[in-house]
C-alpha cells in the first residue's frame, strides 16, 4: 500500500536527501579549514552569477544529461551500467574519426554525422558487456567497470600511436576543421538580442540533450518497447511470461544506454575542445549515476539533476581556483548524493512514511483493511 502521496515521493524524498548531502559536504569543507558559507557564495557567483558562469554550468549539465539518461535507461531495465565513462570515451573517438576524416561542408550535417558516430561507438562499447551479461551471465557491473579501464587504454593507444599529428608531443588529435565548429550560446542567442558570454563553452549540443530527454521520456513511458524495458527491469519472470525476451531487452537497453553516454562527445569533444584529448570525459560518466539516482531515472528529473550537478561542477572549479579546496570536492559531493538518494533512501523514507501514516490515521480512523 502506498503510504506517501506522490509529491512527497517525487520531490520531498530527493530534496531531503540532497539537503543531508549538502550538510555533510559543508562539514567536509569546514574540516579542511575553509568556510562553507563563503564556499557556497563563491560557487553561486562562479556558476550562475554571470552568463560566463551559466555557460559553463550548462555546458557541464549537457554532459550530465546524456550520461544521466544513459544510466537511467539501463536502470529501467534493471541493469546497472557503470560503464558510462568508457562509453563516453569511445563516443569521443567516434566523433573524432567522423570529423577528422570526412570534410564536412557545414556544421549541421557534421553534427548529425558526429552524433551518429558518437552513438554508434558508445553503443558498441556497451554491447560487449551487455552480450556477456545476457548470454554468459557475466556480472554487468564488473564488466562495465573493466571496460572503463580498457577504454582508457584504447584511447591512449589511438591518441599516442595513431591520431597524434606528426611532431606533436601532446596525446591529442589535431583541431577539427573550422566548418564543423558548433555555434555556442553566444552565437545562438545574439540574434534574439541576448548578450551571452563569448568564452563559455555551452553550445547547440544542449538542445540535442534536451531533445534526448524528451525522446527518452517518450520511449520509456509512451511506447510498447518502453513498457517492455520497464517490465523486464521490475520482474524477469513476468517479462518471460509476457514473451519479452531477456537477451533482446538487455541488448536494446544497453545499446541505447551506451549510445546516450557516447553522444556526450558532441558536447565536450566537438563543441568544446574541438579536438580529442586524453582526459576528455572528466568523470562525467560516473556523475551520470548520481544524476540518474537523484532524478529518479525520470528524464525530467535527470534534466534538473544535471543542471544541479552542472552548477556543482562549475562551482567546484571556481572553488579550486580561488581557495585551497581541490576539485575532488565534487567527487565527494557526488558520492554523498549517490549515498543519500540511492543507498540510504530508506533512511529518509522510513521516518517520512511514519509521519504521513500518523497524519493519515489521525485524519480518518474509519474502515480498516485486514491482511495476513
Amino acid at each position: 500500500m502506498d503510504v506517501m502521496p506522490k509529491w512527497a515521493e517525487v520531490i520531498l524524498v530527493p530534496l531531503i536527501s540532497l539537503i543531508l548531502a549538502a550538510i555533510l559536504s559543508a562539514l567536509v569543507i569546514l574540516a579542511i579549514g575553509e568556510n562553507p558559507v563563503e564556499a557556497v557564495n563563491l560557487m553561486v557567483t562562479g556558476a550562475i552569477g554571470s552568463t560566463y558562469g551559466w555557460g559553463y554550468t550548462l555546458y557541464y549539465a549537457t554532459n550530465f544529461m546524456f550520461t544521466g539518461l544513459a544510466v537511467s535507461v539501463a536502470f529501467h531495465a534493471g541493469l546497472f551500467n557503470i560503464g558510462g565513462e568508457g562509453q563516453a570515451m569511445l563516443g569521443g573517438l567516434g566523433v573524432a574519426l567522423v570529423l577528422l576524416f570526412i570534410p564536412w561542408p557545414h556544421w549541421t550535417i557534421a553534427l548529425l554525422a558526429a552524433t551518429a558516430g558518437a552513438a554508434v561507438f558508445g553503443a558498441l562499447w556497451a554491447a560487449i558487456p551487455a552480450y556477456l551479461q545476457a548470454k554468459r551471465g557475466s556480472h554487468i557491473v564488473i564488466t562495465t567497470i573493466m571496460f572503463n579501464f580498457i577504454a582508457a587504454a584504447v584511447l591512449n593507444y589511438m591518441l599516442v600511436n595513431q591520431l597524434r599529428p606528426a611532431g606533436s608531443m601532446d596525446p591529442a588529435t589535431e583541431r577539427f576543421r573550422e566548418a564543423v565548429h558548433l555555434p555556442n550560446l553566444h552565437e545562438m542567442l545574439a540574434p534574439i538580442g541576448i548578450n551571452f558570454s563569448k568564452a563559455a563553452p555551452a553550445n547547440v549540443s544542449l538542445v540535442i540533450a534536451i531533445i534526448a530527454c524528451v525522446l527518452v521520456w517518450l520511449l520509456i513511458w509512451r511506447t510498447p518497447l518502453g513498457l517492455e524495458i520497464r517490465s523486464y527491469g521490475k520482474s524477469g519472470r513476468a517479462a518471460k511470461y509476457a514473451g519479452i525476451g531477456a537477451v533482446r531487452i538487455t541488448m536494446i537497453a544497453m545499446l541505447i544506454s551506451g549510445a546516450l553516454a557516447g553522444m556526450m562527445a558532441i558536447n565536450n569533444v566537438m563543441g568544446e575542445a574541438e579536438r580529442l584529448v586524453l582526459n576528455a570525459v572528466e568523470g562525467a560518466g560516473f556523475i551520470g549515476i548520481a544524476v540518474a539516482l537523484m532524478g529518479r531515472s525520470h528524464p525530467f528529473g535527470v534534466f534538473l539533476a544535471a543542471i544541479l550537478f552542472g552548477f556543482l561542477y562549475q562551482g567546484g572549479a571556481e572553488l579550486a581556483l580561488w581557495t585551497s579546496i581541490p576539485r575532488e570536492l565534487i567527487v565527494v559531493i557526488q558520492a554523498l548524493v549517490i549515498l543519500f538518494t540511492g543507498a540510504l533512501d530508506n533512511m529518509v523514507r522510513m521516518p517520512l512514511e511514519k509521519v504521513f501514516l500518523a497524519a493519515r490515521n489521525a485524519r480518518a480512523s474509519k474502515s480498516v483493511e485486514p491482511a495476513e
Partner: protein
Amino acid sequence: MDFLALFDLAVLDSTIRLATPLLLACLAGLFSERAGIFDIGLEGKMLFAAFFSAAVAALTGSVWLGLLAGIASSMVLSGIHGLASITFRGNQLISGVAINFLAAGMTVLIAQDWFQQGGRTPSLIGGGRFEPIILPFAESLRGVPFLGPIYAELISGHSILVYVALLAVPGTWWLLFRTRFGLRLRAVGENPAAVDTAGVSVVGLRFVAVGICGVLCGIAGAYLATGLQAGFVKDMTAGRGFIALAALIFAKWRPWHALWATLLFGYLQAIALRPDIIEGALGFKVQVQLLDALPYILTVVILAGFVGKAIPPRAGGEPYVKER
C-alpha cells in the same frame, strides 16, 4: 622465443606481491558476500586504507600505527555500507559505488589538506614501511638446487602482510567451515529467514561479516601503500577491488580457490609489467597500452568464459525483510 622466462623467479616473486592485496580483498569480499551482502566497495575501502595508513605512517614514522589507521578507516566505510545495506535495506550495489567515489574524493581532499603535494603522501622511509622478512636459513639454503632459490627468493623475503594474507586463507576456511560462527555466517547468506527464526540476529551477523570485510580491506590497502609501494598516490588501487571481485566469482566464494584465483590475477599483473619477457616469449613487440589493459581484459575473459555456472550465495544482494 623463451617461454620459460614467463615463469622465472622474479616474475613469480612479483606475482606473490601483486596477488597479496587481491587475495586480502578477495577474502574480504568472501566474508561479506557469504553473509549475503554484495560489496563492490572493496576498491574504495582499500583506497581509503591505503591513504590513511600511508598518511599516519608518514606523520608518525610508525608503519604499525599506519596499519591500524588503515584498518580503522576501512571499517568506517564498512560501517556506512552496513548502515545502508543492512540497517536501511538499501541497494548494495549503489552503496558500494557511493563508497568508491567517497574514497576517491576524500583521499585526495585530505591528502591535499595535510600534505599539499597534489593528492599524494610523502614517500615513506625507514620505519614508515613494512620491510621484507628474511625467513630462517634463507641464505644458507640458497645453494640447494631448485628448492633453495625458491625458498630464498619466492617464499622468503616478503613483508609480514604477505604472510598474513597467505595465513588468512586457511584461517578463513577454518572459521567458515569448522565453527559455529561460520555455520551461521553461511546460513545468513543462503537463507536469512532460517537464521532469524532460529533465534539468531540477522543484522548482528551481517554487521560482523561486513566488519571483517573492513579489516581485511584495511590490511590490503595498508599493504598497497606501505608494503608494495612507499606512499599513497591518487587512485592507486587501480581497479584491484574489482579484480578481486572477479576473482571471488571465479573462486566460487571458496577460500582456497580464492588463493589460486588471485595468484592467477597477480601473475597477469606481474607479467604485464615485463614487456621484455612477453616479447621474448612471443617473438614480437606488444603495445604498452595492451599490456596495461591486459589484466582488465583477462578479467572479462575469465568472467565470461571460464566461470561456468557460479552460484552465488542465494540471499546475496537482497536486503532481508521479514516476509508478510
